[in-house]
């Protein structure tokens, strides 16, 4: 079975939720402290939500300098699944692993509410198990979740099928209703909504399962593709 590392920055706060969600789906997830510089033991990595380094300066701006980020970039480069949720998405854009940026919500208030997402592409490690056009109810929880990018970037995102999730009713002013994007290879994904909060009807929605199940399947694929290492 694959191993998923869930990075903990000082100020992260969704790390336990992500571990418990992945575990509930049958995955194997472990917390990884941000000072770690080697992620080679992990088949996939999640940057969870929260306020890494207090979100001081601006969300993700300090976290991109955390020691772990070199290893996250290496993992991404190697084609293994990398998922940034909420604050994690902000960190991935600040680190240049995904294009564009997240700015303050239209309306200038924090928003914690359910949203309906529409799957725009299945060519990513997160959406591979879903169907294009499928609607998923997944909550958002952010102050700076309005996706922005320049015109050329936006055209490229659309042309290369990198927009993976859009809001049905745009809550925050994101360009093109974008809720989540992937890199060109589809192995690095960032989204503002929290799929780990939508795992069971008891908590309001189970629509996040198809996303995290896809991510775990991609992690398993990455594990299977590894060269076999014989234990000493």
């Amino acid at each position, binding site marked *: 079975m694959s191993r998923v590392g869930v990075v903990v920055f000082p100020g992260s706060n969704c790390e336990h939720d992500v571990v418990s969600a992945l575990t509930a789906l049958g995955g194997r997830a472990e917390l990884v402290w941000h000072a770690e510089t080697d992620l080679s033991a992990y088949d996939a990595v999640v940057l969870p939500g929260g306020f890494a380094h207090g979100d001081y300066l601006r969300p993700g701006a300090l976290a991109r300098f955390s020691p772990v980020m070199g290893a996250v970039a290496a993992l991404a480069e190697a084609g293994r699944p990398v998922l940034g949720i909420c604050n994690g998405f902000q960190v991935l854009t600040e680190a240049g692993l995904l294009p564009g940026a997240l700015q303050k919500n239209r309306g200038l*208030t924090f928003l914690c509410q359910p949203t309906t997402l529409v799957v725009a592409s299945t060519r990513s490690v997160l959406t591979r198990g879903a169907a294009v056009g499928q609607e998923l109810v997944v909550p958002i929880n952010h102050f700076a979740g309005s996706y922005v990018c320049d015109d050329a970037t936006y055209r490229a995102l659309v042309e290369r099928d990198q927009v993976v999730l859009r809001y049905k009713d745009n809550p925050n002013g994101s360009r093109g209703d974008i809720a989540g994007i992937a890199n060109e290879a589809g192995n690095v994904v960032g989204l503002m909504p929290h799929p780990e*909060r939508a795992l069971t009807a008891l908590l309001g929605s189970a629509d996040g399962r198809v996303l995290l199940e896809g991510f775990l399947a991609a992690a398993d694929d990455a594990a299977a593709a590894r060269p076999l290492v014989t234990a000493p």
Partner: protein
Amino acid sequence: MTGEALHRALGLTDDEYALVEGVLEREPNHLELAMFAVMWSEHCSYKSSRLHLRRLPTSAPQVLVGPGENAGVIDAGDGVAIALRIESHNHPSAIEPYQGAATGVGGILRDVFTMGARPLAVMDPLFFGPPDDARARWLVEGVVAGISGYGNSVGVPTIGGELTFDEGYAQNPLVNVLCVGALPRERLVLGRASGVGNLAVLLGSRTGRDGIGGVSVLASAGFAGADGATSLDEEKRPSVQVGDPYEEKRLIEACLALLDEGLVVGIQDLGGAGLTCAASETAARGGVGMDVDVTAVPLREPGMAPWEVMTSESQERMLAIVRPEDLAAVEALCARWEVRSAVVGRVTAPVPDVAGRPVGMLRVRQGFDGPVLAEAPAAALADEAPLYDRPRARPGDLDARLSDDPADEPAGDVAAEVLAALVDPAWAYRQYDSQLFLNTVVGPGRDAALLRLAGPGLPSSERGFALTTDSNPRWCAIDPRAGTALTLVEGIANLACVGATPSAVVNCLNFGNPEHPEVMWQLSEAVDGLAEACRATGLPVIGGNVSLYNESGGRDIDPTPVLGVLGLVERLVAPPPGWTWREGDTVVLVGPREARPDPFPLAGSLFARRRGRRGGRLPAFDDRALATCRFVAGEVARVCAGGASPVAAVHDVSAGGLAAALAEMAAASGVGLAWASPRGHAELFTEAPGRFVVATRDPAGLTGAAEAAGVEASVLGVAGGGRLTLGELCDLAVGGLAERRASALPAALGL
């Protein structure tokens, strides 16, 4: 400044100064005086209320820790304990709403994790003046943003609260905050020092000049101007602390890790009265003394005098008592979380006094072996503030008020009255992370919040817990005793809507100036009302807070006791029914159709208040209401456990009466109801607690079960169509009700 003038400037009376001299058997120096002034402040010592609070019942089999510690703790079963605490941050929020509210959240979280509990949720009861005024809007937006900014970032969900607008709070808003945490039972720790030679280690932020005199100058005096905290009190702004949620988040994780690894023998947060309070309280509880080296405290700015260091209320600090051999491990763990740690004190043996009794002395020194700058018995600071039995007087107009019953008010435009009661607080609670930890089954905006009892580091369990905060200043202004008792019934009814059985109560008593005899009468009556209601329901009070001097320009707020009630759900695997009924559901009023002694009392209702009526006879505390709550809680609990119940939707009758409850359910459902025969407008608007609107697809099953439980059930009608029709009195289109309810608050705030 002479010594005498100094003690008054610090907030001590001449008599209190004489008492300090008696304790020390000499004249106090400036530092000692400053320390006594903060510890003997109303805020820290409860000197005006303590005599009364003793009348509250505090014991029950489930209580592990009662009032007096940092938080109350109950046994929730399955090896899990729940810690609960409520506080006020009224005065700081009136002066600086964002930081006042933010540091209120920070302070209460520390109270809870001090007990070894991981904070799991926060609730915020808020009270403001009418929102059509620029200053009120500034306060509302600032307070909500402060709770959102701090609470979300520190990583604790905010799961509800209250939002009340009333003229009485225009100059003196109330910002209360409740926190619940959970811990493995065996990790319970108490804030006490022990082990002579152990070290006192200060964790967290450096100490600055912020918040000096917060408890004495700010929290324990009213606002001078009739315009409240607008002009004359600007100079109090430096007494407001500034919060740093990122520091607090790391401090929480570091402290819980220290407790997990058994590296501390006691721990205490630094809140009101700062290091003086933490050092004297831990020493006094442990029956030991403590030496504090004032030069070892990490400072935010140079040149701070010892009295400033000892009384600063800088946020995000904890005092841990550590065995010397564990110090290196403590320092390493703190360094990992980037939390500053500094040894600032040592636990010392008590010394015999003249009568030979052991007395733990708090000594402030310049260097551990340097000169003693201040010396006083720790217990004298922490526990021996004078207790005041302040004069109480029944208000002169009480009888006139009680006999001024609004029963004679004509119905007026009933539909308009219903619409006015429809205000969805979502604008506020959408700004709070209400879902972190994946526990929130019912979040803000409903009758009560319902959460799974789970969290990082807790044993797994299918149990759930529910929380509600309730207050009713309209009732309590008329009759604080009956009003407070009814408020507890309202809390129990809210819990019943999510299937929870009440287990413990905390209270935040927000009152005016205790030097006004009418205010002391209100406080005493409210305590008696709460005590009576707790005895009638078998509920213990496990903690509380008293906020006095809520006055401006000599005008006191209406008595506002806020009750937090914690309930438990044995098995939580399915969400409870919501407010949504479906076409064809039978809608039933469950509970006494007629209150006692008057069938449909309007005293203390929103209906009466909107007509300027502030008198009359409140409904009596009613055992039938409590039986109804038990019945509803039992039925809903069956749904939560995954079983079947005839209850398909449920909402309790509270502010705005039956009419508002029905309109809220119709708005949530988008389906109407025709109730043919309400007995006049008083039945629509009376707010007697302990009654429920229940929708069912099995009316015979519901009424049969109610009858078997000895509970009244009256069928009102069948849900359907697009109109809410209440006899001849009201006929409203349901379409648009939800939008109207959603937009009411932003519209009132001019957003």
